[in-house]
């Protein structure tokens, strides 16, 4: 049996994805996430995990250095890479939304939107028939409306607490976000039996967890 390489984001998603894999019948050791190791091998199951930044997972998979990956739909929407989406793992649920100061309208002349997700924001406003100027930030997006940098922000919302604590309100929901099992199209064909088997088992495990 050949090795399957899976790119995973570090941290909570990794743990949740591991739980799913275990539920799907994969025999994985309990202590997997050694603080510094970037590659973890599980020879008994012929699996190799690459621990990556969440934004980089689709890059590894697209280039084929990882056969599979676990990536948030936010990252997939933003990067538009050619990877296959096989299974909705239903973990790390959140959603993408626009937010801003309460009771405000967007500037008529040059509405500005701050975000970490320029592609998603551009597409969303374009489809609504509005032309906006995107200001790309790397974090603490909530600051932008508070200090007058932007009229709206586009960001992921999980509980809504951060928005509330900063005096912002949600305006429109853009998309639901969950983590997905993605595959490199070549791996999907060349290692088809193993990958289809894993997708099937994970789908089942996801179904059981939902119940």
């Amino acid at each position, binding site marked *: 049996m050949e090795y399957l390489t899976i790119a995973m984001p570090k941290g909570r998603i990794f743990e949740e994805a591991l739980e799913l894999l275990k539920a799907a019948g994969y025999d994985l050791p309990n202590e997997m996430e050694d603080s510094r190791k970037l590659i973890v091998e599980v020879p008994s199951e012929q699996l190799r995990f690459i621990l990556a930044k969440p934004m980089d997972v689709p890059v590894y998979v*697209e*280039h*084929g*250095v990882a056969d599979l990956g676990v990536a948030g739909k936010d990252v997939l929407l933003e990067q538009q890479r*050619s*990877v*296959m*989406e*096989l*299974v*909705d793992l239903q973990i790390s649920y959140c959603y993408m939304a626009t937010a801003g100061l309460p009771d405000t309208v967007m500037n008529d002349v040059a509405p500005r939107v701050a975000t970490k997700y320029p592609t998603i924001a551009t597409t969303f406003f374009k489809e609504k028939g509005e032309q906006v100027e995107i200001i790309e930030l790397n974090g603490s997006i909530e600051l932008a409306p508070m200090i007058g940098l932007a009229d709206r922000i586009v960001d992921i919302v999980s509980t809504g607490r951060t928005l509330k604590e900063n005096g912002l309100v949600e305006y429109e929901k853009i998309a639901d976000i969950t983590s*997905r099992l993605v595959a*490199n*199209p*070549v791996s*999907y*064909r*060349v290692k*088809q039996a193993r990958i*289809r088997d894993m997708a*099937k088992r994970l789908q089942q495990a996801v179904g059981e967890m939902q119940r």
Partner: protein
Amino acid sequence: MSTIQPFEKPLGMRDTLPRLYAQQHTIRAEAMDYMRKHGYEFIQTPSLEYFETIGKISSLDEAALFKLVDNQGEMLVLRPDLTTPIARIAAAKLLKEKNPLRLAYSSTVFRAQQREGGRPAEFEQLGLELLGDTSALADSEMLQMAAGLLKSLGLQNFTITVGHAGLINHAIDQMIPDVKERDRVRHFLVDKNFVGIDRWAATYPDSKEFFAFFQQSIRGMTLKELLEQFPVLQTEAAEQFLAVSNWIDDLPELKEHFQLDPLVVSHMHYYTGMVFEVYAEGSGFALGNGGRYDDLLEQFGMKVGATGFSIRLDYLLEILPIAVEAPTRTLVYTDQNSTREANQQATALRTQGNYVTVQFKESVLDTKAFEQNFDDVIDLTKEAR
């Protein structure tokens, strides 16, 4: 914008250095030989074509086209594919002289980078087109040529996934009542977004039949079983597909390389019949693809069937174990008085197959470093004697 440094090339453009050039040449020569022996004749089309015709018909995303304006004010494109220009010349001229027509090409195409680097914007494709034949046997010939070519080049671990554009389109049209929903599903299939289809099925009530078909296909149900379970699919397209499938089963030595998958949808939307994609271990991207495109030639005023495929030479190079024949490289040093002798010796060595460089020794600044590029050194200068 930052200033351009003297060593920089435009985004996605690459140099082919001597070593790589030699490897490319070896593979290209072998591939060309294989294609010629199967009755295909090579042609070359221009680098520049009109945007109005080739640019629009080629079905590539407009953002991927390199556009420029000629001195008549016409919009031009750097050729983004070979199939469309070949359809142009075949419809205009070649098919009138020979029909069916078998053509081959080995040319670079240009497709602009849309994201970061790591992908070339100019790359060479090796390909075939069989024009004027609508039979399932012509489809089979393409599959056999693709698999045979890769095998003859020494590739072992490759997979050719075969689908049928007519069948999947028929399935979508028959099983999904709403035109808008059909487009969504087609989009998901092109993107290979199976989660998208799962979610679509969960929210759209009329999705049941198509979703059942989709799930059975993913689970690996055979074509025959699919046609039994979904009788609405039994059409001419299904029959063609079945004929190709039966033909594959009859090829013991190539059979293992083929996979049938009714869900294959190409991003090149001119395909009408059988479509296939070529994958090989070691390359993260598809090596090539092909299929039947019966409507394309109509756009050039001729209604004939056509089928073809292309393989990317750069991806092939990444994964092929290449044994470039390495002849002995000989260096002959000369001075004013020994040029005649040097040339005689060089000619003699060249007839034996050596690659011989004759070099005036005084012009070489660092002889030691220079000599490292050669296997043999013959010094005919006065000091050396």
